């Protein structure tokens, strides 16, 4: 066992016992929060002079919702235990969904793979090698039928994780399948991630040009506002931003900045803030500093309420409520001593619940090694269940409210987030910050800082820079393999579908999509029809991309098969 963080050494002749003796005298390495704020020895009423409870905190369920969006929080309903699933083919993914539902999962949650997010069909030359490796590719309505087979769409709550411009197609595919099965789409419950702006920072820039991101992202939001009143049509993804290495206040500020890009567009289209804001949701990271994460969530709730009321003039309380899902921080996990990840995940999940989360995904312990095995997935779900059913954290709303420390830290995160929001304003607003790559530079410099903190031992991580051991030879609960035969089969099925479909019907549907795009109409209705005509993800997006002046294929290796 190697200890790089050495406390004051007490010399001894006891040889092997030196480490033991040193450890006895140990102090923490730092008194900073994860985001780098100096913390005091103790917090007292003097840290919050002139505290106005009703104005800044208020009871849960009351503006500005610092303490939670529901008065009774988990007493009314537990958070949704929603583990992300996306493995191999639609059929493989369906099988894992079924397994988790039998184990007590309470929300379906499926994630697109890189090929689908990029808007590529499974038979695209860039997709063939990678289809199904990181999620599921839905090339056509047939794949969506396989994924949703036998699932009562009118009763479940389904979270569809497609974030890029392909989210517009996912929405169309889901609606098309539901309509074909005879469901009234007005009663469907669930959410779609649909945050293409942020997704350029996750490697999907070719699929997410800024104007098309705002256009298609807002089309989904507008369509759902008018047709699917129970559907949450965006999950603004603060989590992925945080994974870039930024601090807690930056996560809030950049996330809100991106949310406002969509809000401003929807208002420009003539929607009233109270028509759509109640369906806005967020995807938040919970990193390993428990109190800072709880403070961040509390600050975000207060800031969102004020932003909606004061800047946008919202009147409906639901517009002011910051609703969010948490994904425990993948970047806080390491392959060294992999069992330790379960403990990190449990602390992060605790922070999410103490913060009043609506829906939770716990990472599986094998996140930094492979897709979750069935056993690892189950362990992640069990982590949530132990929290929900054993620990008592569900009894009381905002249990950390009133803590001198947490209240002070909430104020601090709010103050720092507002500073970052002002910085964004100073560079010309979020769209400008994106266009000029100001935001890229923030991510890159913060990520380097995080690595240096570990390199220098300013932040300690067990198994990484303290208490290191030999590399393990095996992964404790096995390794999830992706079946190359199911990928091959999916590719073959897509090729067969393209060969056998009714081309006249498809051409008409694609032509209508193209016309609607040229006319500046909302494209979701035409996408639903094109999906039913067996148009594929790549074909629908490619057609729209060309109208907006982008290459049909984001990878620029294939041409449009349509010629009007």
């Amino acid at each position, binding site marked *: 066992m190697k200890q790089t963080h050495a406390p004051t050494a007490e010399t001894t002749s006891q040889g092997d016992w030196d480490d033991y003796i040193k450890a006895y005298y140990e102090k923490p390495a730092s008194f900073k929060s994860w985001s780098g704020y100096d913390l005091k020895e103790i917090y007292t009423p003097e840290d919050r002079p002139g505290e106005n409870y009703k104005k800044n905190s208020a009871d849960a369920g009351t503006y500005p919702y610092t303490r939670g969006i529901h008065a009774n929080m988990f007493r009314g309903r537990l958070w949704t235990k929603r583990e992300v699933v996306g493995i191999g083919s639609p059929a493989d993914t369906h099988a894992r969904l079924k397994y988790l539902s039998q184990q007590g999962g309470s929300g379906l949650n499926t994630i697109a793979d890189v090929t689908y997010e990029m808007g590529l069909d499974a038979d695209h030359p860039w997709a063939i090698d990678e289809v199904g490796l*990181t999620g599921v590719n839905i090339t056509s309505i047939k794949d969506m039928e396989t994924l949703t087979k036998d699932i009562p769409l009118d009763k479940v709550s389904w979270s569809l994780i497609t974030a890029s411009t392909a989210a517009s197609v996912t929405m169309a595919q889901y609606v098309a399948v539901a309509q074909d099965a005879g469901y009234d789409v007005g009663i469907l419950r669930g959410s779609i991630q649909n945050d293409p702006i942020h997704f350029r920072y996750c490697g999907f820039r070719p699929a997410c040009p800024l104007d098309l991101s705002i256009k298609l992202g807002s089309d989904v939001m507008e369509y759902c506002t008018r047709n699917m009143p129970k559907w949450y049509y965006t999950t603004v993804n603060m989590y992925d931003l945080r994974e870039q*290495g930024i601090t807690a206040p930056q996560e809030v500020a950049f996330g809100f900045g991106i949310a406002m890009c969509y809000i401003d567009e929807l208002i420009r289209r003539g929607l009233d803030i109270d028509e759509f804001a109640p369906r806005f949701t967020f995807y938040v990271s919970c990193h390993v500093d428990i109190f800072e994460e709880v403070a961040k969530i509390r600050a975000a709730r207060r800031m969102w309420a004020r932003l909606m009321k004061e800047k946008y003039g919202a009147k409906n309380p639901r517009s002011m409520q910051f609703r969010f899902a948490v994904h425990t921080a993948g970047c806080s996990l390491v392959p060294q001593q992999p069992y330790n990840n379960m403990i990190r995940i449990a602390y992060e999940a605790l922070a999410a619940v103490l913060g009043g989360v609506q829906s939770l995904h716990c990472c599986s312990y094998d*996140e*930094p090694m492979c897709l979750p095995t069935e056993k690892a997935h189950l362990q992640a779900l069990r982590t949530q269940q132990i929290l929900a059913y054993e620990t008592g954290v569900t009894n009381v709303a905002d249990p950390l409210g009133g803590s001198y420390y947490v209240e002070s830290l909430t104020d601090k995160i709010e103050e720092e987030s507002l500073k970052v929001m002002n910085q964004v304003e100073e560079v010309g607003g979020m769209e400008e910050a994106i266009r000029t790559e100001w935001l890229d530079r923030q991510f890159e410099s913060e990520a380097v800082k995080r690595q240096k903190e570990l390199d220098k031992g300013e932040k300690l991580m067990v198994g990484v820079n303290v208490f290191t051991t030999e590399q393990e030879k095996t992964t404790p609960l096995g390794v999830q393999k992706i079946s190359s035969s199911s990928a091959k089969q999916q590719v073959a099925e897509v090729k067969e579908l393209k060969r056998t479909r009714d081309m006249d019907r498809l051409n008409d549907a694609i032509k209508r999509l193209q016309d609607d795009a040229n006319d500046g109409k909302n494209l979701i209705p035409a996408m639903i029809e094109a999906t039913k005509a067996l148009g594929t993800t790549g074909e629908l997006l490619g057609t729209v991309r060309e109208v907006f002046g982008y290459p049909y294929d984001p990878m620029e290796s294939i041409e449009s098969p349509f010629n009007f």
Partner: protein
Amino acid sequence: MAEKKKIKVLVTKVGLDGHDRGAKVVSSLLKEAGMEVIYLGMFQRPESIVRAAIDEDVDVIGLSYLSGEHLIFTPKVVDEMKKNNFVDVLLIAGGTFPAEDIPIMEEMGIDKVFRAGSLTESIVDYINDHVEE
């Protein structure tokens, strides 16, 4: 001290994987450690990687994999290197891998695998110790 030629490193993503935080951070920190770094960026194929490595005459190729694509692309990169007779170069990989895959990757031709959670010093030292003068 005699002027020493800077070690030249090519860092790249392979295929569609968009997780580029690690590749960018490693690129920055290798530069700070005195190496010359060419970061090729995303959406590279084995052909474009080896072409760039030859054009730049690098000493090290660093492949970044975080989407489970390492066993698919590694043999293709190695084949491409052999095809171009560009084999006298250190081939390293970084990212997220199960422990079981590390010997497989080494068998395929990777000289050293750095998993997530590696400290910069371990990468810098390895390169300094293994790039031939």
